[in-house]
């Protein structure tokens, strides 16, 4: 049996040796170029510059992410597919619109040392862990559709609880949309009492709260702040409560299909029969919602639809490439985000015989320093917490004259711009 034992001993020694080898220090260092504290990406001659896209591309929220993926593709095409003579390549990972998805996808990007920057996430919940992972690796992250205040700041100088260095966004902060909707309801419509309904989604809950807070600050009363659950169909009981609180306006920044049930069933309540008391948000600005008869007269808040020739041009390219019009509200934001990243790369990249080095720290600094950048969504300037948006919020109304979602978006009653920061 001693041979057996010898064999096992040999195995053991072998495995130990392997582990020893594993723990051996690594060598190799770039010459000529000294990376900063966060390290650098070196792109070899002819190799692509890799950009990660962290977007929701499956499930209920698939359209939100798909729209932004397409926008980035157009941004790349507009660059001719190349940056500093290197092709731009994207890698799309699904954030599942959930924290778990953000973690897994974030780890996947973090594992790839060639990822220069990540555009995303689609959903704020996914951004929280993804930001932590990517920030730890020094990877720049810039989102075109996150709106939660905790990711950046409350716009009054208080840093958001989830905020990390290296995270920026081109989408508006919820607080602004809340202010916009509240201002419109209180000042333009003269509403003094409001009810809010959310559906338990972090986005809708955050927005409903932001609206409520602003409305109270303006001097109004929130008579009922209630909620439903996703999957509910019978809204009549909750609408009974809403009606009993006698609001002048009902703000429900939720999604389909629950919102469909609300507007359809609201018809049966005399107080809500006047559809001008119904107020939704960007989640409902879709063709399938505005065709519902009872949405005629309803108000919606949402990021201002870009105007101007560049945007028309963009939509033309989008339609040509994907044979449909942009499907969500945040494509332009992601297009701007991508271009800001490209501009920053061009600014900081160091060329060295065919290779380029991109210092991560300098790249981040360059994006934070973005000032008066002319994008599709307006003039963008980033603050120290990463809010770059030019936050114009439009309040639009769906009337008999509007047949398509574009026409509804165009029927702007009120545009809100926060006082300069």
């Amino acid at each position, binding site marked *: 049996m001693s041979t057996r034992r010898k064999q096992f001993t040999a195995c053991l020694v072998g495995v130990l040796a392997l582990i020893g080898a594993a723990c051996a220090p690594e060598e190799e260092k770039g010459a000529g170029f000294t990376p900063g504290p966060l390290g650098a990406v070196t792109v070899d001659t002819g190799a692509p510059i890799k950009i990660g896209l962290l977007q929701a591309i499956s*499930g*209920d929220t698939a359209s939100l992410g798909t729209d932004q993926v397409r926008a980035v593709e157009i941004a790349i095409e507009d660059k001719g597919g190349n940056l500093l003579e290197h092709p731009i390549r994207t890698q799309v990972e699904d954030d599942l619109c959930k924290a778990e998805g953000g973690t897994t996808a974030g780890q996947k990007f973090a594992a790839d040392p060639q990822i220069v920057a990540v555009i995303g996430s689609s959903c704020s919940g996914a951004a929280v862990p993804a930001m932590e992972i990517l920030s730890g690796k020094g990877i720049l992250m810039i989102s075109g559709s996150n709106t939660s205040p905790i990711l950046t700041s409350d716009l009054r100088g208080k840093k958001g609880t989830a905020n990390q260095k290296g995270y920026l966004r081109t989408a508006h902060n919820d607080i602004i949309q809340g202010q916009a909707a509240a201002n419109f309801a209180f000042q333009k419509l003269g509403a003094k009492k409001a009810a809010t309904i959310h559906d*338990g989604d972090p986005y809708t809950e955050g927005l409903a709260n932001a609206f409520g807070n602003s409305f109270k600050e303006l001097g109004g009363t929130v008579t009922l*702040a*209630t*909620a*439903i*659950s996703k*999957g*509910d*169909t*019978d809204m*009549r*009981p*909750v609408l*009974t*409560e809403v*009606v*009993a609180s006698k609001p002048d306006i009902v703000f429900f920044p939720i999604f*389909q*299909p629950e919102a*469909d*049930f609300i507007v*359809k069933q609201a018809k*049966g309540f005399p107080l809500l029969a006047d559809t001008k008391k119904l107020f939704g948000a960007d989640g409902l600005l879709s063709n*399938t919602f505005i065709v*519902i*008869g009872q949405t005629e007269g309803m108000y919606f808040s949402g990021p201002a639809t870009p105007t101007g020739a560049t945007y028309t041009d963009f939509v033309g390219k989008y339609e040509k490439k994907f044979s449909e019009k942009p499907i969500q509200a945040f494509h332009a934001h992601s297009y701007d985000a991508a271009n800001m990243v490209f501009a920053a790369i061009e600014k900081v990249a160091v060329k060295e015989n065919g290779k380029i080095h991109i210092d991560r720290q300098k790249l981040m600094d360059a994006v934070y320093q973005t000032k008066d950048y002319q994008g599709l969504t307006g003039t963008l300037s980033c603050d120290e917490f990463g809010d770059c948006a030019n936050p114009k919020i439009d309040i639009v109304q769906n009337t008999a004259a509007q047949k398509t979602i574009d026409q509804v978006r165009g029927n702007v009653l009120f545009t809100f711009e926060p006082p300069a920061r």
Partner: protein
Amino acid sequence: MARTNSLRRGPVAARRVRRLPVVDAFLWLVRIAAIALLLIGAVSSISSARLSGQQWRDLVVFGIAQGSVYALVALGYTMVYGVLRFINFAHGEVFMIGAMTGYFVTDGLARTALWDAAPILALLITLICCMTVSALVALLLERVAYRPLRGAPRLIPFITAIGASFFLQYTMASLFGTSVKAYPEVDILSGTFDVLGFRILRVHLLVIVAALSIMAGLYLYVERTRAGKAMRAVAEDPEIARLMGVDVDRTIARVFGVGGAMAGAGGLLFGLVFQNVHFLSGFLPGIKAFTAAVLGGIGNIPGAAVGGLTLGMVESMGPSLVLVGLGIPAAHQLKDVVAFLTLVMVLIFRPTGILGERVREDRA
């Protein structure tokens, strides 16, 4: 479905587990707390006069309408359980497929002249389509997934049913998309009636009337026809039924078929009330309908009706009556909590359900 053997106990509980005083005390505490909270909430809610009498009456009507749909779906659970002692977890999906069929048929018919010319005929055609498709799906399910497992340990067909439930949901999702399908408006169903001070939507009246007549028909079918007799015989004892010349396979298949047809009708009514259907539409209503069946006393057709209506009322009144009264914000978010707690409470208080008789319990 009467009792046969006094040694065998009811379906749920009523089994004489050696009792620990601590456990009993805990359960009593739960019962007392539940009743106390219910009363406090109800009293403070009603006394606050937040809602008018009319609004309370409205809530009752909403509850009855919702409950009627639950009752129709609950029939399928109750029939299958009565005969096989098996929860057909996928029954909610059979219901959803009925609603989905209703969408495709009404959507197609809405483009024809028939829709405006003879809306009642169009609805009848839709009803027949929904019932047929749902019955076929239920039959297929029985043949493929359940029949080979008859006689297997109880959990095995139940797990199969869970699998079937997911399979059907995602089959529908992958074939027809995950988007919400909106039913066309039915003009004759909009508007309200006033009955004894209750304001009833026409569509709700249709649901209530349809549910009651379908259930009455089913009751007669089971009690009065030969096929119904065979079902009762199989429920009592399949082996003796076989000896008596009953074709057990066919009878069980018929139970699934009839239950599926009921679910199809329920699906269409659901679609007409809420004007929307999507691939997950059956999951929660299915669980709720099962809850309703248990609530009323499973294996019992009038019980399904009573259970469905009770659950509908609990869901519609519960949050407003109790939770708001207890000062809980956003009470309607917790509607399902109320529904499930009701189920737990009923099973603790009265394991056989409201109209429950004890059903033969087979340890299969």
